[in-house]
């Protein structure tokens, strides 16, 4: 009997507690959840889930790893940096080079000397100080200064006379950058390189404020003083980044949004979009069928646009068995890309033919890939110096976990069925992967390349010129080298692009890379968001956007 009393007592305690919890929850729900408290109490309006402000654009985002234009290498950080900073020139939404702080420029007849005429009405967004030619010399020299540890200075500024000396600590300044007066800047490069201007659209060449950096070398990027269309208003690691318009922005169109809030906290992006918490969301392969369905209401908010990326299979051209081009061709021809695209990838991306993705200057639809030809593939394998008897073949992938993607599964199946070759898969953690790709440790690997600036040089020269540091396939073809050198200094763009087309044709046949798919960014955009588009490259896009709500 007494045991029963104890049980009743226990039950009563639990009951009261559960009721209390439900009660508190109900109160919180009734209050709409707006009230915050504790250390994270914050203005509910500015929280990711809070009510939106008129004219606010709410985006999913990643934490920027840095907001220093000289240090950025990753796309997510660059997305913020191009909105906060600017340079001499910039890309518009069609990836055309447009004046930014330089209002015009002239190039000397020998193609070496660029004279930029700067606008006199550009100021830094936070301090209001006017930007002059001296600021540009300072900013580029700061990027080249070895103490800055810029990973990108040699790629984007290395063409300027004297820049490499400064990067290697052999000079105190970049001799090729001269300040003529406040609004005139003269830059001399080491050879006539038509793609040089395109490189200046990358953040490494952006202008930063010396006064601010001198004052607080460590922390200045917490309130970056740039010249971009937006200013940083708040950045809470892992929670949100808030941008507000720079009222003094000089170029047209000027920003139209009241504010831009990036939710960095993650969670299911599509759910947040459907629930009206964000205005834009990427769509993954698992949701694509549903979104493509015409009866689905989200279908009307769906846009698909190519990105300037190519995913590819790469071979180590010095290691057996891929030192024989016939083996490489056989492996390429044994893959039915169209079928993978249709069945596995649900047509989210197009199959790749050449190396350059559509949208890239010099992209040419006449360039065809090796094609799917199992019979020829088998024959090539027999004709190769291995005569069909291959050593162990390993495909290395970057990534963790047990599951290799269905795309890779499909390729393995196709090699087995069409060539009779069992390819082993090795998965390597990202950190290890990139290091070992650079060291030439793998036989065959799958990777993608995203353009940094819209010029074919950015794909073809850096990956396939025999002495390029990023030539990880160790491809070495004197004919290709000769053409690439020729293209570097050809000043007639049409002729230059023809040379690149020729290079691409050779490369596709020689199959150091087997281009697999071009990139695409399926996206949902709320109907009240106007002017948004994906661009393939990171460009300051937000100034074209307005929100009618």
């Amino acid at each position, binding site marked *: 009997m007494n*045991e029963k009393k*104890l049980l009743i007592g226990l039950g009563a305690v639990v009951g009261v507690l559960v009721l209390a919890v439900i009660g508190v929850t109900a109160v919180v729900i009734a209050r709409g959840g707006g009230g915050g408290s504790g250390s994270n109490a914050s203005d509910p309006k500015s929280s990711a889930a809070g009510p939106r402000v008129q004219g606010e654009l709410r985006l999913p985002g990643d934490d920027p790893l840095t907001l220093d234009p000289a240090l950025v290498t990753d796309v997510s950080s660059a997305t913020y940096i191009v909105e906060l900073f600017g340079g001499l020139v910039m890309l518009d939404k069609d990836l055309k080079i447009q004046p930014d702080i330089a209002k015009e420029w002239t190039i000397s007849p020998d193609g070496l000397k660029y004279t930029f005429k700067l606008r006199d009405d550009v100021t830094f967004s936070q301090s209001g100080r006017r930007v002059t030619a001296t600021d540009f010399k300072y900013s580029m020299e700061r990027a080249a200064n070895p103490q800055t540890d810029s990973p990108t200075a040699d790629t984007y500024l290395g063409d300027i006379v004297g820049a490499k000396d400064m990067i290697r600590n052999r000079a105190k300044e970049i001799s090729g950058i001269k300040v003529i007066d406040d609004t005139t800047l003269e830059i001399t490069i080491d050879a006539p390189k038509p793609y040089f201007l395109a490189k200046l659209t990358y953040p490494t060449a952006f202008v930063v404020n010396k006064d601010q950096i001198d004052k607080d070398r460590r922390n200045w990027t917490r309130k970056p003083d740039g010249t971009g269309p937006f200013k940083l208003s708040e950045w809470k690691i892992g929670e949100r980044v808030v941008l507000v318009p720079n009222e003094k922005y000089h170029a047209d169109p000027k920003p139209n949004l009241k504010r831009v809030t990036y939710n960095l906290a993650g969670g299911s992006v599509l759910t947040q979009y459907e629930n009206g918490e964000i205005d834009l969301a990427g769509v993954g392969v698992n949701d694509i069928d549903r979104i493509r369905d015409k009866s689905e209401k989200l279908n009307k908010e769906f846009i698909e646009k190519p990105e300037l990326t190519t995913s590819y299979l790469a071979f180590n051209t010095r290691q057996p068995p891929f030192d024989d081009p016939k083996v490489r061709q056989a492996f390429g021809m044994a893959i039915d890309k169209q079928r993978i695209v249709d069945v596995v990838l649900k047509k989210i991306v197009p199959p790749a033919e050449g190396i350059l993705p559509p949208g890239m200057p010099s992209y040419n639809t006449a360039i065809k890939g090796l094609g799917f030809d199992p019979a020829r593939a088998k024959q090539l394998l027999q004709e190769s110096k291995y005569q069909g008897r291959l050593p162990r073949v390993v495909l290395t992938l970057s990534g963790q976990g047990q599951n290799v993607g269905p795309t890779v599964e499909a390729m393995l199946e196709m090699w087995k069925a069409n060539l009779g070759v069992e390819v082993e898969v090795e998965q390597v953690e990202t950190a290890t992967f990139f290091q070992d790709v650079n060291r030439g440790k793998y036989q065959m690997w799958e990777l993608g390349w995203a353009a940094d600036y819209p010029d074919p040089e950015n794909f073809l020269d850096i990956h396939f010129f025999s002495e390029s540091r990023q030539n990880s396939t160790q491809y070495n073809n004197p004919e290709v080298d000769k053409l690439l050198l020729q293209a570097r200094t050809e000043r007639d763009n049409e002729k230059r692009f023809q040379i690149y087309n020729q290079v691409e044709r050779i490369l596709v046949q020689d199959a150091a890379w087997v281009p697999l798919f071009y990139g695409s960014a399926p996206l949902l955009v709320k109907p009240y968001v106007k002017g948004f588009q994906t661009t393939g490259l990171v460009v300051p896009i937000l100034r074209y956007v307005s929100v009618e709500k």
Partner: protein
Amino acid sequence: MSGALPFIIRRLLAAIPVLFLVSAATFALGRFAPGDPVTVRTGGKVSPERVEAIRESLGLNDPVPVQYLRYMGKFLRGDFGESYRRQGREVSEIIFPKMWVSAQLNVIPFFLAYLIGVPLGIYSALKRGSWQDPAITSILLFLSAVPTVVWIPMLVYVFVLRLDLIPTVGWNGIFSTSIILPIFVLTIGSFAGVARVVRISMIQVMGEDFIRTAHAKGLRSSTVVSRHILRNSLLVLANGIIASLFSLYAGSLFVELGFGIPGIGREMFEAISGRDYDLFMALTMIGAISFILANLVLDIIYTIIDPRIRYA
């Protein structure tokens, strides 16, 4: 209680070699794991020559023991260093706000798990032999067998998308609606475990001779349960509490990822895959220190709960 102070001092001294081993092992594991923060950060976009120059200037090319001593020198002065991944950010300014978020997120489920789990376990143990016990046990088994990653999309679908009661994501402090689903998922995951532990230890104690003696000497059943059985089962429970307290610190990766909560679990995950050496060192060290302290407290509590245990 006379022996308490020397006992505590002895235990704290014994913690020093443990911390040394933990720090050295973690440090070495990080440094010897392939790849490094610079390679991860630049992701194949930067020439190997530049990567090498940056490694050099960050001191990553120095011998590992030298790097270790340099790190520990700073650590002992209370300087946790700078994040390699989030350039220009102090480790302490990244981890402490996130640890605070995780702690808040886990504190309610922690209490709920015990408030629901303990009575349920007691009830179940006392009802052994009748239908209630297997019924409760099977339900508990079912609830704890459904993984977090299944709960999250299910709950989100029902409460967020269909019923539209709650915003999906974000962290607006502990007193907001967006915390309800995470708390629910975390509680479901742990109260069943608590109930099972309580039930088993109760049943074990109930079979002991002294319980029979207690009954035999004519004590009322409720007295036997509360004074003898419960008290003796508390030992096991105290152990479990320390273990689950640890989740307050370690965070809960899947819940944080699924609901978009900026907690420490996610940061730790990213720090390890991004080779953010100093960040995961700091987390490991803080974790090790709090674990040692918690165990010390537990040992002291033992002597209070069970007078048979002496300081030794």
